[in-house]
């Protein structure tokens, strides 16, 4: 499995109503579990894992919360940070100003900065860095302030 396939699987799993799944291939196995109310995905590669599982981002703890979201303005890879070795643009609880960059979307080697739509507090980061974001897919949830 490629990293992307694992990401896709995690994504699918997170959106699904099932709470646990196990997938075994010739030289790998993956177990995904999540607590019924709080969907937290965890990829556990087996001992001789052929692929490096992506670092799992801390998930938003309050899935029942609802509110406005920043949606992907185009299809592309979601990045929470300006570079792999740098801190993310925003973290849960941050106050951000309107127009401040909250994440990046990469499409065809072009980075698009996604701005905050208004002054707000970030309530949740809904995608893992490096995942494909479909057009219109929610990336972050915020509360206007």
């Amino acid at each position, binding site marked *: 499995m490629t990293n992307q*396939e694992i990401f896709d699987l995690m994504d699918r799993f997170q959106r699904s109503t099932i709470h646990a799944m196990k997938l075994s291939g010739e030289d790998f196995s993956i177990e995904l579990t999540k607590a019924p109310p709080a969907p937290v995905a965890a990829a556990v590669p087996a001992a001789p894992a052929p692929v490096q599982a992506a670092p799992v981002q801390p998930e938003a703890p309050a899935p029942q919360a609802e509110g406005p979201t920043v949606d992907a303005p185009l299809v592309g890879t979601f990045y929470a940070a300006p570079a792999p070795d740098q801190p993310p643009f925003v973290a849960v609880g941050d106050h951000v100003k309107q127009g401040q960059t909250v994440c990046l979307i990469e499409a065809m080697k072009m980075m698009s900065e996604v701005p905050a739509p208004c002054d707000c507090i970030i309530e949740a980061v809904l995608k893992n860095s490096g995942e494909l974001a479909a*057009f219109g897919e929610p990336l972050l949830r915020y509360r206007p302030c």
Partner: protein
Amino acid sequence: MLKRVLIANRGEIALRIQRACRELDIETVAAYSQPDAEALHAQLATQTVCIGPARAAGSYLNQDALLTAALATGCDGIHPGYGFLSENADFADACAREGLTFIGPSGNTIRKAGSKSAARDIMKAAGVPVTPGSDGPVPSAEEALAAAERVGYPVLLKASAGGGGRGIRRCDSADVLPAAYAEAKAEARACFGNDEMYLEKLVLRPRHIEFQILADRHGNVIHLGDRDCSIQRRNQKLIEEAPARCLTSELRARMGDAAVRAARAVGYKGAGTVEFLLDADGHHFYFMEMNTRIQVEHGITELITGVDLVRQQLRVASGLSLDMTQEDISLTGHAIECRVNAEDPRQDFRPCPGTVEFLHFPGGAGVRVDSHLYNGCTLPPYYDSLAAKLMVHAPTRLEAIRKMRRALEEFALEGFPTNAELSYQILYHPTFVRGGCTTAFLEENLPRLLDFNRRVDQHEDTL
């Protein structure tokens, strides 16, 4: 063989491609626009990615979004279907740059065949007959006038990048030409971003005969016979049949040879179509244009040849040789296709998108229906109005006509009006039954057919 293909299209053709992929064990990624989230092609694909909003420019024409989706999902090929980016040379090049197989000819071939004035020159050089006209583009109305004097009126002004009936004007005399020239040029600029014009003599009351081509990457080029697409309204085909009744086997062989020469001249790869005009005397034919994509009406060729054209496209794109030669191709029986569009002939063919409240497709031996509709689905207003393709295959033309009549009788769609009834009327028209229709048929007979319809409506109202 390709492993995973992104389908950069929607509607029935996306479904058609998915079916061929499934049968070849190729995974599919449906790239869909927001309003197509519930569409059949998005439901049946192995994987889906929403690539943009309703507006085609942001989704099905959005090259970056399609390439990003294809790369992120690990595709090795992109099938463009028809319309949208299928004949976009830059997109074919961009796919190649990203290491993705564009399922179609190369960007260069598309460029050669796609510029209509350049294609004329290439065909002339390859010994394929073309209609008399300007030598290359006509950059001004004055030069267009001079060329028109030389070939004689009536003439057609055409956009080099044109297609789908856009950027074309008919001129019957010199006094209307300058205005028509300016109009067509502006339309071409708006529609295709390229306002190069050329001019050719208008062949009056011609038939539209096209040849299906298949070419691999190893120099093999064959043709799979012809289709008669003369039943058209404003260059939009309504009923197609294969093979054309008006061709003798001698003429079919000559035109088939010319089509193969045309394909070779542009270095064609994959499935394509060479369109000819056959003049009213039924002897002279002229190269009209080459379509570098799978066509809407490919199904009737599949019915009479038994060749799965989309499967062949995927094989050729994977680098395989054609698994047949010209000698293996024989045309069996007769096939007819009716395009059912969500449009109302009573209201000047106004597009009528809507929700399918009830749907029943015809069945039985020799009937094929390609459609993306299902009960409860919505045909959105943003894209073309094709709702279903009804196809029939029978041993003789008359049997095929009878089969299509009964197929249309069985067909039921509630939720929005369609042109199905008009096709049904045409299938009873003596000129059609005799096989005597030219491209002028629909225009000449439409008022009578519609008037008949109106009277039937009134009669039913009084009952």
